[in-house]
């Protein structure tokens, strides 16, 4: 009965209640999305690469190297020579080394040149290896393995032709209709940037940069069952696995002091942590801001209720006449406040859910962040609980004011 009274009373003050609901909804959405994206991004971030002990690239910053080699963000400023790659492979303690050649794209998706070993060595999340949904590893320079999203979004299946252009971006002047690569394999989804990558062999990258005539020669050779000899001069980055993890620092120093050319070697875990520190600070600021916004909108609600109580003196007097105790009136105001917050919180949850549905793939494509769209988690429940507790606390201001009014003015409704 009291609840119905509270709801009816809110209904009778529709406009101001609606505005309050909107303001709380926006602030709760902000809080939930900041928290959700923060935890999800961190998770997505940390699961991107695993079981790789060292990443090597040309002399550059460690964050930059991590971003272009793992997240496909930005471009290598310099390549490293094939000799350096061979030197790394041959170094003591190095168990395996997978080269990556970066810098090309296919319809906005990055193209990575690598070796067959990549598909067994690259691990993500909890040391999970890549799996093929269809087909197999590329066998010739003109074959490609697609990440799940590339295949899905561009509608490719096994045996399809794709034109790979030089440079990054959707449009390119080098569209050669008659020099197609064919799809040899499609990977299972991983929730990492691998999903958005076109993988070809290192030779494939070289072939891509050849003239039309040269490519035709390669095609002809392949048709005759010959493996064309393509010289690979450089790679962009090398993923390195060691015999034992404890050798990491030693090998790291060795590579950094390599005399052949200036190289940078990083530990992926440390680089991830460093990137996260930068991002994490921003997220903390966002979090503080969203908490402040929440408090201010709850105070706005308290103000709204407080003002309404001044207008509702008669109503309170009537409630007293029919036998409502001051405690009942206190509860009535609290119920009104909580109803507003509950409605706002759930509206906010749906708002965030829908925004994430819309925004998740964009975040993935542009920032390599893979966000779970399900916001109906225990974390969100805890947040809403906190919001409700805060509401109850702040609503004490108008509720106590109503309680006092009820005590003082008696049952006289003048």
């Amino acid at each position: 009965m009291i609840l119905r009274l509270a709801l009816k009373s809110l209904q009778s003050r529709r406009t101001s209640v609606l505005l309050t609901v909107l303001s709380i909804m926006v602030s709760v959405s902000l809080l939930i999305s900041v928290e959700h994206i923060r935890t999800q991004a961190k998770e997505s971030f940390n699961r991107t690469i695993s079981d790789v002990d060292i990443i090597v690239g040309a002399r550059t910053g460690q964050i930059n190297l991590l971003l272009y080699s793992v997240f496909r963000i930005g471009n290598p400023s310099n390549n490293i020579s094939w000799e350096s790659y061979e030197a790394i492979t041959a170094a003591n303690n190095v168990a395996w080394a997978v080269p990556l050649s970066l810098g090309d794209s296919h319809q906005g998706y990055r193209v990575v040149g690598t070796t067959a070993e990549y598909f067994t060595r690259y691990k993500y999340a909890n040391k999970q290896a890549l799996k093929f949904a269809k087909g197999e590893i590329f066998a010739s320079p003109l074959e490609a393995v697609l990440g799940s999203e590339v295949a899905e979004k561009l509608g490719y299946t096994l045996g399809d032709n794709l034109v790979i252009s030089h440079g990054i971006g959707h449009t390119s002047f080098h569209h050669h209709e008659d020099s197609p690569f064919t799809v040899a394999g499609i990977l299972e989804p991983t929730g990492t940037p691998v999903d958005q990558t076109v993988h070809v062999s290192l030779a494939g990258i070289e072939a891509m940069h050849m003239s039309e005539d040269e490519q035709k020669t390669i095609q002809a050779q392949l048709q005759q069952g010959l493996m064309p000899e393509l010289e690979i001069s450089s790679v962009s980055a090398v993923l390195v696995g060691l015999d034992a993890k404890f050798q990491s620092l030693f090998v790291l120093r060795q590579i950094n002091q390599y005399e052949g050319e200036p190289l940078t070697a990083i530990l992926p875990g440390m680089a991830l942590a460093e990137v996260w520190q930068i991002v994490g600070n921003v997220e903390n600021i966002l979090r503080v801001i969203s908490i402040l916004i929440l408090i201010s909108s709850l105070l706005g609600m308290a103000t709204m209720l407080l003002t309404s109580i001044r207008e509702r003196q008669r109503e309170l007097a009537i409630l007293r006449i029919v036998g409502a105790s001051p405690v009942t009136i206190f509860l009535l105001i609290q119920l009104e406040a909580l109803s507003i917050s509950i409605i706002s919180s759930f509206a906010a949850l749906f708002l965030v859910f829908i925004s994430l549905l819309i925004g998740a793939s964009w975040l993935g494509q542009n920032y390599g962040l893979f966000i779970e769209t399900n916001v109906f988690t225990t974390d969100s429940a805890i947040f809403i609980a906190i919001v409700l507790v805060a509401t109850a606390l702040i609503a004490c201001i108008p509720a106590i004011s109503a309680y006092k009014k009820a005590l003082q003015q008696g049952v006289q409704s003048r």
Partner: protein
Amino acid sequence: MTSDKETLKDHLTPAIAFKELRFCYPNQEHDIISIDQWEVARGEQVFLSGHSGSGKSTLLNLICGALSPNSGEINLLDKRFSSLPSRERDKFRAKHIGVVFQQFNLIEYLSVAENVELAAYFGNTYVGDTYFGNNDTNADGANNFKSRLLQMCEAVKLPRTILNQSAGKLSVGQQQRVAIIRALINEPEIMIVDEPTSALDSNARDGFINLLMSLAGEIRSTLLFVSHDEGLAQHFSKHVSIEQINNVKVKVEPMQ
């Protein structure tokens, strides 16, 4: 007027009894109420007159339990009302006292039926939270309530269709009649009516007072009718002026 059901005790204990009653507002120096002894017998219909500022409103608040006396006692029915804890007083008021005011008796955003239901809810005479009739568990309570409501609508000559209208849309006369229904729904032993006719024209006023007296009479409710307008005293067999019972003669400005 009497029936077998009334006990001897009911006859003996007055409906309202004041003894050595003193009241002073916390921010004022002098008592505003000082009544040595006053009683209203059960079933009596009393006209209490008094100028504004004579302590009428204060007295009503004391009887309703919204204010507590500084000393002395108020006995209602056979309860020592003034020494009950405030929660108990609120409950007692809900169940045993029906109140009609000058104006603004109803919550405007609720329907007429809901306004009455609210009184029934606090008075505990309405069992179900089911006026809208879509819950079977308390269908009996709801039906019972609804039939009482319809009966009373007829008694105060309001059309049934008014029940689902929001109270704010009624005319003042209609609102006052709904206020009577609201005050009577719990069949209270005591009715307190404070200037209920000042917003009505003279024809409506006489009709209203007669209606009120006959309905209160039907349930043998004690009626305390308070007004500054001594012309209304003609309707009542007993007329008391507050100056007669209140020892405080000092003219005090009314609160608020």
